[in-house]
């Protein structure tokens, strides 16, 4: 059994081995090489899919569409109480819009950054309270560097 995260919650998929193939619902899948699969559905001609695992995600290409599915691994982290807002790319801090102690809602702009010569806003990932601000205006930040810590309010 394989579990994926989906917008509607966790989705379970049950592939059954059958000789050199797998059967999943109405689909029969046969592995062709390390990334290619043949996908055969009753009454339809076979289609070719490409799939590869990158970290905890499976990326796949089927019928001209790319999908990225996140695996729910046993014992995977279920999300901590703290949301660190990090710089997604190197850049400079143009403005800090919050102070420690501020109550913020998910989506509240926290920091204005200049990256790739464009202005961007870093947003609060959850509702909560700002517990730390790690940067000041003018600071140069690296990708992944934590800018602001937002603690989820616990009632």
């Amino acid at each position, binding site marked *: 059994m394989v579990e994926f995260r989906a917008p509607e919650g966790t989705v379970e998929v*049950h592939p059954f081995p059958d000789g050199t193939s797998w059967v999943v619902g109405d689909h029969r899948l046969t592995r062709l090489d390390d*990334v290619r699969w043949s996908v055969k559905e009753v009454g339809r001609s076979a289609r070719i899919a490409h799939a590869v*695992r990158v970290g905890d995600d499976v990326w796949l290409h089927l019928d001209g*569409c*790319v999908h990225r599915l996140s695996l729910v691994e046993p014992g995977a982290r279920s999300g901590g109480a703290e949301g660190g807002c990090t710089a997604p790319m190197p850049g400079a801090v143009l403005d800090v819009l919050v102070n420690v102690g501020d109550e913020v809602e998910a989506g509240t702009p926290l920091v204005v950054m200049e990256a790739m*010569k464009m202005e961007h806003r870093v*947003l609060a990932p959850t509702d909560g309270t700002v517990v730390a601000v790690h940067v000041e205006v003018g600071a140069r930040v690296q990708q992944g560097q934590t800018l602001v810590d937002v603690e989820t309010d616990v009632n």
Partner: protein
Amino acid sequence: MRSVLVANRGEIACRVLRACTEAGLDSVAIFAEDEVGSLHTELATRSVGLSGEGPSAYLDVDAILEAARSSGADAVHPGFGFLSERADFARAVVAAGLVWIGPSPDAIERMGDKMTARITMREAGVPVIPGCEIETDSTGDDERDLLTVLEAVESAEVEVGFPLLLKASAGGGGKGMREVTSREGLEEALRSARREAMAAFGDGRVYLERLLRNARHVEVQVLADAHGRTVHLGERECSIQRRHQKVFEEAPCPVMDEELRARMGAAAVAAAEAVEYVGAGTVEFLLEADGTFHFLEMNTRIQVEHPITEAITGVDIVAEQLRIASGERMQVGDLHLQGHAIEVRIYAEDPSNEFLPSIGPLAVFRPPTGPGVRFDTGVREGDNVSPSYDPMLAKLVVHAPNRAHALARMRRALDDFVVLGTTTNVSFLRDLLDQEAVVGGHTHTMLIDEVYPSGWTAPSVGEAARAVAACAASVPTRSVGGSSSSAEPSPFITVGRRLP
């Protein structure tokens, strides 16, 4: 000219290096410390490492001239971006006794400063967009200049009117550009535009243009040699843009006729001749529905979308650049356009999240092939997409006997294109090609915002796709990278698209 140093990286460096090989010239690639082993270094006769990482390495004029000297190069091709439109670099190349493959530094300067270009064009009789140049000190006192600009805007309002565009005089690529719909938003837009322009270009001067809604972005390719011949190679329609950057280009323009092409071509040639242009260049126009057109700017370099012109004219523009730079006459005959060509730009970006640049490994990277397909890239399977450089990974070009066939060919090519491990705009482009406005050729610069008013949503995951993912997760497969990639949506939005 025997050996050409290509002062660039990625896709365009590969394009130029291949042209050098075909012309029987030696070539030299340069690479930053974080680009050891990248594709372009393998296509050159020799390659020279620069110190430092990221774009700044490719902007180091002294280091590049030293690389040319140590490798025995006698010419420099700048590609696009980086130093390609820097007159000081062109001057330094010439002063070092090397051939500069591009227009004169003087021509670069006169076209590079957008305010000067507008004035030059008006004097040459080329129509410009109604607007107003505002003279301020480029790096002077911010507040005082702000007042000057505000005053100038208010007196120009009658002529220009709202909505208007604030643009950086040193600008390009949408940087330092803001749309202003009313007087209330003006001051904030002005501050923001000047700040972005200062950061990007070190020059905060801005000017005003009337915002022409539903206009087409149509540009004309020109070539000029040192023997006094200047020709145009027809037009390219580049209206479909996101964040003021082009994503879909085609040639010819769907609404062009012979008479309009002749007039726009003549205006483009006049623009080039006004600055005694030599080499390949592009004159950009806005074309309104009633057939009036206005000069936008001239790009004094090879352009990303040059392959669609190559496809329909049969002219190898980079080969002509090399020929012209070595003092020969261009080998271009009369203009005969054949069929229809389309280019899409493949970006490492997330179209479902404001087109934010994405990074990751190119775990699987299998470009389309087949009749009428050209694929220009600087990456290959196994490479990593880094956040340091421009997110454009490749350009996909198709050529077919007519527009409908070209669209069908592009759909087929995009369907065949497999990129896994890094989010790209391929699925978005595929969706775009089914949109009525694109199919009908009713393209204009606001098209993406109109067709996708609340953004684009990725297609949902079907049963078959889940089945593939489950099987791929159940067998030992080629596994790439650590767990650094997160499934969480990016807590990050780009302001530029909403507030251009």
